[in-house]
């Protein structure tokens, strides 16, 4: 048995590449010192709690530029779906009664505003702020940033939720009666239609690190889907009630599900075991996570912000914001 001789030239090449790689990593780390902004925070003195400070109390403590950024929008056209574009510059608002508004969030300028005159269930930006998809009463429509209707997807009926897989150029839509459909927006063709067999889903989210779609069902389970399988990748029985909201953190390590009976559960993404559970005053109907991992729950008329939930079980929320009476 001859031992394979080591290729000296290849060895030398690999060594050299390793050195270059390490140098590149070091430079990238060094580069982080050049980042101009640092993380914001709210820290209370020993005997005080951060959640006691309302937004209007904190406002005078902020620099002028930030104070000017705080404002209220009184919107009358039903429940609103929100979506930010990937660079955070544009905001899309879609009201249940058909109001669509595209805003440049940095300048707080309204770019375009239309009323589609029918029910809007969900909205979603496509690859950038120039195009967005709207799940309307019957079909999915695609609009331009000027509000011009580009496409009416007549095959995609009664979509409930929309998600855009940015790196795959796939528009994922969850439909009435449990259809999950993937469409390639670069070619305009449907890639995959999956019948989830779990009825109309209650919520939908996306794992940004892998492109996996999470659906929350009325049976109390949440499932994870990829377009190459016709069965869910993972199915977890999370709540005894419908899963009203679902979210996956930006690092792809935790799934957060909110049930009808006021419970919010945190699941580990690898073991799918519950890590923590929290109680909310009212069932959390919407859930979202910030880039730094702050969890925001919309529970009835209150918005709760939870910080450091991934480190240890939190006793209370980080911040609370009470909305005007009648809003949720």
């Amino acid at each position: 048995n001859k031992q394979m001789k080591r290729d000296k030239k290849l060895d030398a090449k690999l060594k050299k590449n390793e050195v270059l790689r390490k140098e590149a990593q070091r430079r990238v780390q060094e580069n982080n010192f050049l980042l101009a902004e640092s993380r914001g925070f709210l820290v209370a003195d020993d005997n005080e709690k951060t959640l006691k400070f309302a937004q209007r109390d904190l406002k005078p403590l902020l620099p002028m530029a930030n104070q000017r950024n705080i404002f209220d929008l009184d919107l009358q056209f039903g429940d609103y779906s929100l979506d930010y574009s990937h660079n955070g510059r544009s905001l899309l608002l879609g009201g249940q009664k058909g109001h669509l508004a595209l805003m440049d969030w940095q300048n707080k300028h309204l770019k375009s505003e239309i009323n589609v005159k029918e029910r809007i269930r969900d909205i979603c930006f496509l690859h950038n702020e120039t195009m967005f998809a709207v799940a309307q009463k019957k079909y999915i429509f695609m609009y331009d940033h000027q509000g011009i209707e580009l496409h009416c997807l007549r095959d995609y009926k009664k979509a409930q939720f929309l998600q855009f897989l940015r790196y795959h150029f796939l528009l994922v839509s969850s439909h009435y009666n449990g259809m999950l459909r993937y469409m390639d927006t670069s070619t305009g063709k449907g890639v995959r239609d999956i019948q989830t067999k779990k009825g109309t889903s209650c919520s939908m989210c996306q794992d940004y690190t892998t492109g996996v779609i999470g659906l929350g069902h009325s049976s109390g389970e949440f499932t994870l889907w990829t377009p190459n399988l016709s069965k869910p990748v993972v199915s977890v029985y999370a709540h005894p009630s419908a899963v009203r909201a679902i979210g996956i953190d930006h690092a792809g390590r935790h799934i957060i599900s909110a049930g009808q009976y006021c419970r919010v559960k945190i699941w580990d993404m690898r073991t799918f075991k519950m890590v923590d559970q929290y109680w909310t005053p009212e069932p959390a109907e919407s859930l979202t996570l910030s880039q730094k991992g702050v969890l925001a729950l919309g529970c009835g008329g209150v918005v709760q912000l939870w910080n450091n939930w991934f480190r240890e079980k939190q006793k209370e929320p980080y911040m609370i914001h009470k909305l005007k009476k009648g809003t949720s």
Partner: protein
Amino acid sequence: SMVKIRTICRDDRNYTQKNTKEVQKVYRNSNASLHPLQQAREYKRALNAAKLDRVFAKPFISSFDGHADSVLSMSKNPQTLTEILSASADGEIRMWNISKGRNSLVINGHQGPIKGVCYAHLGLSSHFISCSEDKTIKLWETNALKKQQKAHALEESQASFAYKPKQEFISKYLLSSVDRSFGEETVFGTSGDIVQIWNMERSQPIHSFDWGIDSVTRLKFNPSETNIIASISLDRSLCLYDLRGNTPLKKVTLKNKSSALCWNPYEPMNLTLGNEDSNCYTFDMRKLDAAKKIHKDHIGAVLDLDYAPTGKEFVTGSYDKTIRIFDVNQGKSREVYHTKRMQQIFSVLYTMDSRYVLSGSDDTNIRLWKAVASDPLRPMGEREKVKMAYLNKLKDKYKYNQEIKSILRHRHLPKTIYKNQKKRVIIK
């Protein structure tokens, strides 16, 4: 107060360029969660780069026709990029301007087939030498020839016009090739029955080397060690001579006879032989007992060989009607060019800007090809150059990946070559 608060407060002025002279500040956060699916995205980019490489692989530029018989030998002007000489089997020498694709001179130089044509030393760049089967060696001078051409054009006589060489040498022995020295301006050598070294100022050869019974087919002067000459002969050997002594230096015999020979201009101790068994053998002249590298990809005898000025690649022309470009350190060719109309290739050249390859073949045409098949050739702006460099690096990084490798290596081959290559794999 009872609470500390800090928010991100971005000043627009810090993020916008005041004027075009100011450098645009780009802030890159290396946090992995902001850049998901990095490996998959990079792979996709590499895949697309490989596919585009094949899409844009259009190596053939043009063919120069004019010769009436097969092109046996070519030479490139050491000073001008656009000028080459080609010599054919009917005794005609043509000087071409490659960029214009036209003849500048058509010389009915010899009566027999011209075996070798070669530009003289850099110091005498307007001179060139041709040797032919009719045992004559002629030294030509371009400017004089052009004057003759003009004079003839003015005369407008229909009578056949013969250019006059600057000097003519008559050899006692048959001739097979000619090459000039890199050291002394007036020294050149011819091979044939024996190796003869000439000086332009003398009518008789100044040295003769005779080792072995068989005739010598090719001769090449070393570009750096200017006194060393390599030659290949019909007794399947490679022979090294030194001008300073009067005897040959070393001899190495291979299994089959070689037809092509070239020194590496960048590493002048290395030379490559093109052999009848369709392989190319790279030797280090200091250690001739084993070949440094065997380049195996042709299926017919390798007839001519030329190195790129970078010394990293060489181009070979073979009897199997294809041209291949090999990397010096690789055993497999990087590129293969073929056309239905191109027959056996007797001579190849790699231009001095290392971007083009020329082939002179049995079908009387000289063809100009790109050295890198997907090279856009156009002048590129800075951003485009950076992008191209990135894509090339990606292709290089992923060249061992199965899918990308099969895309990058894919070449359409004529049936005979494809079948023969398959056979060879089976025989192994």
